[in-house]
């Protein structure tokens, strides 16, 4: 039996990688992937805790998260395509119209 802490440490590592990638990478698609990474790190903690407490609700919640993430991916990719069509770039540093 693998202790719960291991899962949590793994999830933390994955989440941190996601955060780091989000902050460092400039390509929108890479950023998008890092978001998915963070989401799934959280999913992993859900599953780990559900297993630890022998509760099914955590597992079910993960399904919901995955469904929502799929929808989000669809919308997100649509936005990315739209951005690329109008601006011919995927560099987030150039997408800075919303500033003072």
């Amino acid at each position: 039996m693998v202790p719960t802490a291991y899962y949590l440490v793994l999830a933390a590592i994955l989440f941190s990688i996601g955060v780091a990638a989000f902050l460092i990478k400039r390509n929108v698609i890479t950023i998008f992937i890092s978001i998915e990474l963070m989401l799934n790190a959280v999913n992993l903690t859900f599953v780990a805790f559900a297993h630890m407490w022998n509760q099914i609700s955590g597992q079910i919640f993960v399904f919901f998260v995955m469904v929502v993430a799929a929808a989000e991916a669809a919308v997100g990719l649509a936005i990315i395509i739209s951005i690329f069509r109008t601006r011919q770039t995927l560099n987030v540093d150039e997408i800075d119209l919303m500033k003072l």
Partner: protein
Amino acid sequence: MNAMPASYLWLIPLLPFAGFLINGTLGRRLPRAAVSAVALLFTAAPAALVAWLWATMRAAGELTMSSDAGPWIQITGFRVDFAFTVDHLTLIMLGVVTGVGFIIHIYSVGYMAEEEGYWRFFAYLNLFMFFMSVLVLAASFLLLFVGWEGVGLASYLLIGFYFRKTSAANAGKKAFLVNRIGDVGFLLAMFLLVAHFGSLDFTQIFAAVGQHPEWQGARFLTAIALLLVLGATGKSAQIPLYVWLPDAMEGPTPVSALIHAATMVTAGIYMVARCHTLFDRSPIALAVVACIGAATAIFAASIGMVQHDIKRVLAYSTVSQLGYMFLACGMGAYAAGIFHLLTHAFFKALLFLAAGSVIHALGGEQDMRRMGGLRTRTPITFWTMSAGVFAIAGIPPFAGFFSKDEILYQTFTSPGSLGKVLWLVGLVTAGMTSFYMFRLWFKTFFGPAHFDEQRDLHDRGAAVHLQAGTHAVMVADRDEGRAAHSHGVHESPWIMLLPLVILAILSVIGGWVGVPAAMGGHNEIESFLAPVFSSGAESAAIPAGGGLEIGLAIVSVLVALAGFYVAYVFYYKKPEMVAAIVDRHKAAYALLTNKYWVDEFYGNFLVLPLLMFTRGVLDLIFERGVVNGSARAAAMGTRGFAWFARKQISGNIRSYAGWLAIGAAAVLAVMIFGRSLWVRS
């Protein structure tokens, strides 16, 4: 008492106040006739009320009457009421204030007829009447102080009536500020009274003083009395605070007559007389009052002898006469002081109004060197003014003779050698008074005319006429309440002459209420006031031979005649002698014409250091450094923070995310490591 409910007392001040409100709010839109009607009505009614009050109180044999409208300030152990009280002293003051005030209102209708701001003038004048009535009716120090400050305000407004003229505006400010110095004394006196008596009510305080014979000469009573004297020197223009009164002549002449001669400036004397119970217990304060009075009398009279401006001569004469009243109070002869106050109100108001009539006749000329020979041109003004001149010079049987003589007699017979010295000072002053008044008389009404009627007056009259049509009247430099319709020298209209005649009659007969017993009279005013000044009566009742009194009277009449003769020689018979004498005593003459350089002294040694302190320390360091500096620092701080915050809105998603991550990490850190912070407590 039955005939007149005490609550009617409230009408005496409130009616002029109503007049002030009407003229002050609506006056701009009302025609001039309506403004004068309101002003006259609301001052005539109180005068009639006072006359009625006098009659009823006399018929009922009632000594005092008071009306209390309930508490004003009420805290534990201390209470001040809105209360008015009338006794014989108040009655005389009320008579002067409402009677002379009403007469001067009539005169003003004629004098101010062509002036810009007519409604404003009458609104202020009514406001003054309101505060002055409050002052004399007040039953407590605090209410008296309200009137005291209020008349100061009205005086300030009226001195600065021609506010576009810098000198008038400055004179107003000077009067206001100099009076504040005196008011500090008054306020401190009130604080001491509250501390020692727990009350500001006249009756309570005087009763408390009466119950403690051991307080004779007590230190705190002396302190209170001296502080009150400081207040009185401000209001009544005595040394060292007299400097504002001569400058106050910048106001229109009726104002000089009403406020700066007849009524307001006598408030200090009234106050001292009202508090005689306190002063009687403090020989030091009384001596100070007497010395201030005598010194001011001779000092101001000596300056008045060389002034050329007709109103300034009268102003210094007022200061000098107020000094006489102070002297009388300081000698414990309060009744004599009030008697002189009464007669002085008549003849000095008359002199000012007549001077105004002369100024009117000459189209605004105030310099006596440019007058002369007006006796035949303005006969009624001449005759009425003569009555005033004879009265103030102390020629019997005019009013001033009896009152001034009473003061000198009381001073002479007072115990101690101080009285003899002050009597001599008063006597010399009487001679000076006679000299400068007859000098004014001769220079104005006799001798050759020094004005150029054809060119000067006609031009000026035309010029003023032109201005009257435009709105530029007040901008003109020679428009000091000056008649705007002069077509050469002419007598004033009847509405100005009537008050002169009334006041002239009063100046002749006004003194007859105080003919001393030695001259076959009853000195009615003294017995009338005796109930008020009962404690001072003992000192006044020193048995003295009637011969002494008559002897002293003869001496002072001779001195007055000497003054007349000198003026006659100098200014009528041999005018060239004056120049020779001035040449021989250049230094003395310079001293007098420059008014002993008192204004310069005050300016350089008091005002200038104060200005330097305010500009250098208060303005530069405190105002600009501390106040403005802290405000600026706050503004700069906000601005800097805003600059920093604005920089964060970069539009850079990754920086937003970075902040978000740092924030989330911080929250996590607090939740994990900061837990101990609140768990422990």
